[in-house]
């Protein structure tokens, strides 16, 4: 997996580069917009991480140009600006995710992995993880054939986690998807819901599916055989 990081702040770039390399990613780093764009167009990257405020060519510009040639490569925007209008503009230009500085590296890592493994989203009507079955049309959840009653929020949380079994979702990501921006910062709400979900989903069964990843978030994982 090869990642291009365009970030003019050298220390920030260093931290991200070190962190990603420790996770065994191949990382190319450059510190200005023009060479960033040149690298992005010369090589086939699996992911671009762009800072918005760059010398010579800003991140939005790179994004727009890259998107003209390559619709596929996932792009993660890093920025010190978080004005709503900015966010909307960049999503319209084709950004896949957006992270505001200061961010925790663990959060960045979770999002990077999510983008790299994005692959085909499971759009089927029925999601299956191990013996868990989620019917997206009737919103019914069964485990081992036995029906589990969930509240609307618990169901939304479970469905979100089940779209990508094995992937770690950070609390911020969960809040963004299951709740909305207004709940940002209220991360304990995720823990409370996960606990409730767990009591219905896992507690009665010997094999646990909903796993806490320390410092990162939660994942719904198929029990290893």
């Amino acid at each position: 997996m090869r990642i291009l990081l365009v970030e003019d702040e050298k220390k920030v770039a260093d931290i991200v580069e070190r962190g990603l390399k420790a996770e065994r990613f191949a990382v190319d780093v450059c510190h200005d917009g023009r060479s960033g764009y040149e690298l992005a167009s010369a090589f086939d990257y699996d992911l671009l991480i762009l800072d918005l405020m760059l010398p010579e060519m800003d991140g939005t510009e790179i994004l727009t140009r890259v998107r003209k040639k390559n619709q596929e490569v996932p792009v993660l925007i890093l920025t010190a600006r978080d004005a709503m209008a900015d966010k909307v503009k960049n999503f319209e230009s084709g950004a896949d995710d957006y992270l505001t500085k200061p961010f925790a590296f663990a959060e960045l890592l979770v999002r990077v992995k999510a983008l790299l493994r994005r692959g085909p989203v499971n759009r089927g009507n029925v999601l299956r993880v191990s013996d868990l079955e989620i019917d997206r049309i009737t919103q019914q959840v069964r485990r081992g054939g036995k029906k589990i009653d969930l509240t609307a929020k618990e169901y939304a949380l479970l469905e979100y986690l089940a779209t990508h079994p094995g992937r770690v979702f950070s609390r911020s990501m969960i809040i963004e998807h299951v709740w909305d921006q207004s709940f940002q910062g209220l991360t304990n709400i995720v823990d409370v819901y996960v606990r409730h979900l767990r009591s219905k989903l896992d507690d009665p069964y010997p094999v646990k599916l909903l796993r806490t990843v320390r410092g990162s978030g939660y994942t719904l994982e198929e029990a290893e055989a």
Partner: protein
Amino acid sequence: MNVGSIRFRLVVWYAGCLTLIFMILCALLFLNLRQFLERDLQLAELRRAHQVVNTLLARVPRISEDAVGPQVKDWYEPELNNRFIRILRANGTVIYESGPPQSGSFVPAQVPLPKNNGQTEFSEKLKVGNDKTLLIAGLYFPNKRNATYIIEFGELLDPVETMLDHVFLQLTLAFPLAIFIITAGGYWLVSRALRPVEQITSAAEQITQHNLGERLPVSQTGDELERLSLSLNHMITRLDDAFQQTNRFLADASHELRTPLTILCGELEELTNDARLDPKQRERTFSLMSEALRLSKIVEQLLMLSRLDAGEAIVEWRQFDLAELVRSTAEQMNLLAEDKNISIRGNASEAVLIEGDRSRLKQVLVNLLDNAIKYTPAKGSITWAVRRSDNRAVLEIADTGIGIPAEALPHIFERFYRVDKARSDGESIGLGLAIAKSILTAHGGEVEAESTPGKGTCFRIRLPILKPALPLAVKTAT
């Protein structure tokens, strides 16, 4: 009426001064008139005396002294005309004295003889009878034969008094009318002059921190008020600049702080994962990191506040039902409350349409509900209610929590204010309610809190309503 107002004071002073001037003028007019009329009468009498001297007495002894009396009586008919005429010799011998007047207002014989003070002409006023005054004027006439005659003519001042009374009455009647006209006119004039001041005042009252872009109306009259509004506008411009500078500074500062914070957090995060650290070092690194995260949170919220102050944070503006928003938000937070065994209940009898940034207002609700859950002990309850009142949408969120001490209550919406300063758990920064208030202010709303320590707190939010209550859609027949 406000007795301290410029208008009142100006009118009082103006009316007072004009009244005083009017009174002085009247008094002068009255006194001068009296003097002029008396003098006129006196001169007429003297003229008659001279006439008697020239036509009769100067010719004595060619005509007999005794013939003078009947001739005078014949000419002047003093009894008929209510006049007094007396001709004497210097030694006091009366040559002629008019008879009692028809009106009977005086008795000629009782009129004292004139005192010789050496002047040829004299005059005096004599009180006779009831309130009547006899004006006597006369002259000494030395005859060629060294005999001196004294001729006296007298007349009642009645006509003068009558006329003066008349004038006095008219002035007295005219006086209140004049005062009324003066006061009313003064009031009108002052009001007219002060109207621009009132306009400026009411316009200035509308201007707050949030609409410093607006300016006062300037009347292009070239007068002092134009200058006043112009200089006030200049002042608002300077205030506006200062505010914008502060906001820009706050935004720039928060912005600039983000990159170093990212580095700080990133380095610390990496360090905490370093396997070579001993437990004590690890604990310290964790503590450092949590402080760095706290710092990030403060920077984030400060930036949010500065953007709200600058009016940039409200992006979407659409109408929605406040009751529905509260209901759904409370529902989303229900589990947090249930977890602490707290119940959230609420009601809204009708839809209350408002206009604004839904997600920002939701943020306010999340903040208030989160506070309510945090500060309410287990088995407590939280109730909310949405209603209309005086064309405002009113939302109340009440809890049965620990409450807020009375001395802290006025400050809870201030930035960085914390009720319990000792318990800085790292969670609260003291900006949440300030942000909530700023969001509401940006929507033209307000928020207030009531609290009884130990019993609970109630937050009340008022927002402008979009439409007055509409009748429900026509009910179809059952």
